[in-house]
């Protein structure tokens, strides 16, 4: 069963297409297929053995309508919507008015008889059912004329819903045809059940045990007909899922409150809701040999650069793992340089951000089971932007961006500069400040670097503890961190007050970085700079900075230089990065992406004359 599927091609149905691509003919060669036997009991036994006879596998054996043909409905409880199975499958099958269309080896007589039986069933039921349409009445009259009343299987006809009524209605005309041609095979019976009885939109036939087991384990229901090697799978995927919530890691003051959830179909529908463009495409892949998670590549055809898209799809196809617990695994697998501390693929919890980037010509990736969507290709600047910048007025948005850049600078450089100034170049800061810092550090036995490292590591511990701690005792962290470590460490003479200021300012500045992955990278880089500063002072900081610059200019995201639009230099795009120019001036998509459609739908307010 351990085969992986590679699904290509576009799916325009974001919902319920878990299994749609299973029949893709391209993949037939790769599949591990065991044909299904004709014997129903044997089939059920096979499935049970294959799954290790699980307790959550529900097997319901019954008969089709009034016929003697046996059938079974299988599903796994918990991941399946059992209401759907009960009402739209089981009830529909049991009460269907299908004439007994038997195998060819059965006698015509027999089949005739059972078809009559079925007709009678129907008329009987319809009589007992008070709410009937006029069409139904005429058909029931017709069948009344044909034979005697036979009250089989009519116990639950009282509660029959209108949907199965409609089914019966269409069966009537069908069964009329069958009478003229009595030699019907079971495969047409299966077709008939599929087209007329099953009240589930997304249902189809499968022939291999592999497909069947995948469908079963994805939450679909299986319908097996005795003497038939083809089975039906019906989308009854259900189970518990989280409702849409506010994004936890990317809150905004002004902007949508919607965040992604773990269910990919919900996530895709969130994007679909925002872009009602027929060119919006979802390329479906499957990752995880055992988990068989769905992965969707979202883009707008006609905007996206095809070369980049091909590269993304190519890389996604190379993924070969058991299970991707989060989109982070996918991100690490397909990014250009896995050794780099910088995120080359942006993660976001916000559908509006993903949508905005898709419309910029970038590519979004959603993975089933992860509330984090991925955006690629990105540049270094992208991780410092927040979608809220566009929701505020441009001056405010620009200032906020500027503030964020300053705090990013502080988050990276401040501790290193502090160490360099204190340890190597005290002459560079005003002498009064030098004296007062020296006075407070008088009792501190450690050199500046040890002092800063002590505080920085403590801060990291506090931060990490704050994440892992139960929320109820989260307040303790504030007390322990703020008062005990800050205040007492100073009065105990372990660190100087200036160090506490530097560490806390650095820590708080780190939180202004809108993207968590970049904030993590900044935390790592800070230590590299600290080491540089402790060895060679300011000169060391410059060298480490140049090292980082070399690393960044050599870094690529899906083949796009990570240092764009600074280098290669695109003046036009800087107005959307350094500042947030007024919306009406942002008429072009990022030039470094080389999108098919360069101009945004934004005429700069020209048409409003």
């Amino acid at each position, binding site marked *: 069963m351990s085969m992986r599927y590679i699904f290509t091609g576009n799916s325009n149905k974001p919902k319920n297409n878990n299994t749609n691509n299973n029949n893709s003919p391209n993949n037939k060669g790769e599949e591990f297929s065991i044909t299904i036997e004709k014997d129903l009991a044997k089939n059920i036994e096979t499935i049970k053995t294959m799954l290790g006879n699980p307790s959550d596998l529900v097997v319901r054996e019954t008969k089709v309508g009034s016929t003697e043909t046996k059938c079974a409905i299988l599903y796994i409880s918990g991941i399946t919507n059992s209401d759907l199975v009960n009402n739209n499958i089981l009830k529909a099958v049991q009460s269907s008015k299908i004439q007994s269309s038997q195998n060819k080896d059965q006698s015509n007589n027999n089949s005739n008889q059972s078809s009559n039986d079925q007709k009678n069933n129907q008329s009987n039921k319809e009589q007992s059912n008070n709410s009937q349409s006029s069409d139904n009445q005429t058909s029931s009259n017709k069948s009344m004329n044909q034979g005697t009343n036979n009250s089989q299987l009519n116990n639950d006809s009282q509660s029959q819903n209108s949907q199965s009524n409609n089914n019966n209605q269409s069966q009537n005309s069908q069964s009329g045809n069958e009478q003229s041609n009595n030699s019907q095979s079971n495969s047409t019976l299966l077709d008939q059940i599929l087209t007329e009885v099953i009240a589930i939109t997304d249902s189809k036939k499968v022939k291999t045990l592999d497909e069947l087991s995948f469908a079963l384990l994805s939450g679909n229901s299986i319908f097996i007909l005795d003497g038939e090697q083809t089975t039906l799978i019906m989308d009854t995927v259900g189970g518990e899922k989280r409702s849409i919530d506010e994004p936890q890691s990317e809150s905004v003051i002004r902007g949508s409150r919607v965040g992604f959830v773990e269910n990919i179909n919900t996530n895709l529908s969130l994007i679909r809701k925002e872009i009602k463009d027929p060119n919006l495409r979802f390329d479906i892949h499957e990752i995880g040999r055992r988990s068989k998670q769905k992965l969707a590549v979202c883009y707008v055809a006609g905007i996206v*650069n095809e*070369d*980049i898209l091909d*590269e993304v799809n190519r890389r996604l196809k190379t993924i070969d793992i058991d299970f991707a617990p989060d989109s982070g695994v996918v991100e690490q697998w397909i990014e250009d340089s896995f050794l780099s501390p910088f995120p080359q693929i942006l993660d976001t919890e916000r559908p509006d951000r993903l949508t905005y980037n898709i419309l910029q010509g970038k590519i979004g990736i959603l993975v089933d089971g992860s509330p984090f969507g991925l955006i690629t290709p990105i540049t270094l600047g992208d991780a410092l932007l927040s979608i809220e910048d566009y929701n505020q007025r441009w001056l405010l948005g620009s200032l906020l961006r500027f503030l964020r850049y300053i705090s990013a600078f502080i988050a990276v450089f401040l501790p290193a500069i502090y160490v360099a100034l204190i340890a*190597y*170049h005290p*002459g*560079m*800061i*005003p*002498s009064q400040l030098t004296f007062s810092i020296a006075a407070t550090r008088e009792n501190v036995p450690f050199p500046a670097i040890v002092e800063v490292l002590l505080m920085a590591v403590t801060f990291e511990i506090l931060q990490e503890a704050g994440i892992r701690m139960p929320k109820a005792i989260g307040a303790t962290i504030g007390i322990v961190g703020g008062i005990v470590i800050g205040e007492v460490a100073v009065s105990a003479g372990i660190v100087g007050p200036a160090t506490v200021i530097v560490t806390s300012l650095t820590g708080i500045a780190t939180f202004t970085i809108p993207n968590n992955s970049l904030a993590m990278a900044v935390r790592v880089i800070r230590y590299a700079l600290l080491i540089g500063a402790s060895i*060679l*002072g*300011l*000169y*060391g900081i*410059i*060298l480490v900075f*140049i*090292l980082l*610059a*070399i690393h*960044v*200019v*050599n870094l690529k995201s*899906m*083949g*796009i*230089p990570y*240092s764009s639009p*600074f*280098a*290669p*230099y695109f003046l036009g795009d800087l107005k959307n990065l350094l500042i947030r120019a007024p919306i009406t001036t942002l008429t072009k998509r990022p030039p470094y992406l080389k999108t098919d459609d360069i101009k945004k739908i934004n005429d700069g307010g020209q048409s409003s004359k």
Partner: protein
Amino acid sequence: MKPTLTHGFISDRDIMITVTTNIIGITTLTFPRIIAEDTSAADGWVPILIGGCIACFLAWLIAKIASSFPNQSFFNFTSYLLSKPIAVIISVLFILHFILVSSYQVREVSVLAHQYLFDKTPIQVISLSFLLVVVYGVAGSRAGIFRLIVLFYPTVIVGLLLLTLLPIGLFKLENLLPIFQTDFEGYLRASYSGVHVFLGFSIILFYIEVVKEPKNTPKMAIKGILIAVIFSLFLFLVCVGTFGNATTSNLFFPSFDLSRAVEIPGGFFERFDVIVFVIWTMILFTTTLISFDLVILLMMMLFKKANKMKLIYFLSPLVFLLSSLPVNYIELTTIGRFLSNSMLFLIILITILLGITYKVKGGNQN
């Protein structure tokens, strides 16, 4: 996205930026001293202009010839024009020159850091750490090197503008006077040094290979030189205006000392030279990176099968050893002069050789 083509990944503008950066990086630190030595008061502006014009002319000539061989390596078109053995000899000369330039630059940074930042740290530690960063840069892609240059360019320009504008308060007009008191011989010698200042344009000979559309390269090279000329002119005038001619000609790094004289308002940084030091390190770094990369580029042309990393491993100790050889400032100055002369010799040699054969054989046919 498909990997970019091996040829032609930088634009005209990148070449202009590279030329400016390279010129500023190689000589700007010391050139006010060299020019001021031979001229009186502020007369140095004449030789700078003359030197700039000569450099522009040479650059135009070289770029014209080189750009008629689009996307062909230096070795390819020199072998075509001058026959292979001569091309090999010229390449070897350039390799030796650029190895020396790399080590000179490494030493210059160490001297600068040693003199102004920490006098106790051994100079070898400073130069070794700098060289290691350069090696890391060279080990990356060549496109990355150009991106780095472009990335640093705004910082460099803004920093140098600050450097020339901030000392305006200390500027004394009488330092510039009297004008035109230099004798003819002085002008001649200073103009000769003036040409040296702008020889950084030689890189277009080798980088023309990676320019996307080399048609505009001559124009862009001249633009790049002109930016450097204008900037050098201001810097020289400010230097002489601030320090006076006599002081300028006796300071080892007059351009850097300029920043030490300045006090910036606000009182947060006691010394402005810290910020300028950051910028100087960046400039010198890019220049060293370029010359080291040119060594690799030329060696890869000669030894087609050579492994880039092995070449780097072989060359870095050599550069480091050479950079430690000069004992004092006087020797360093002599080496600086020697390098300027050798560069000028090489440039003139190749211009004449290529110019004549180009006229005879015509442009690129294949």
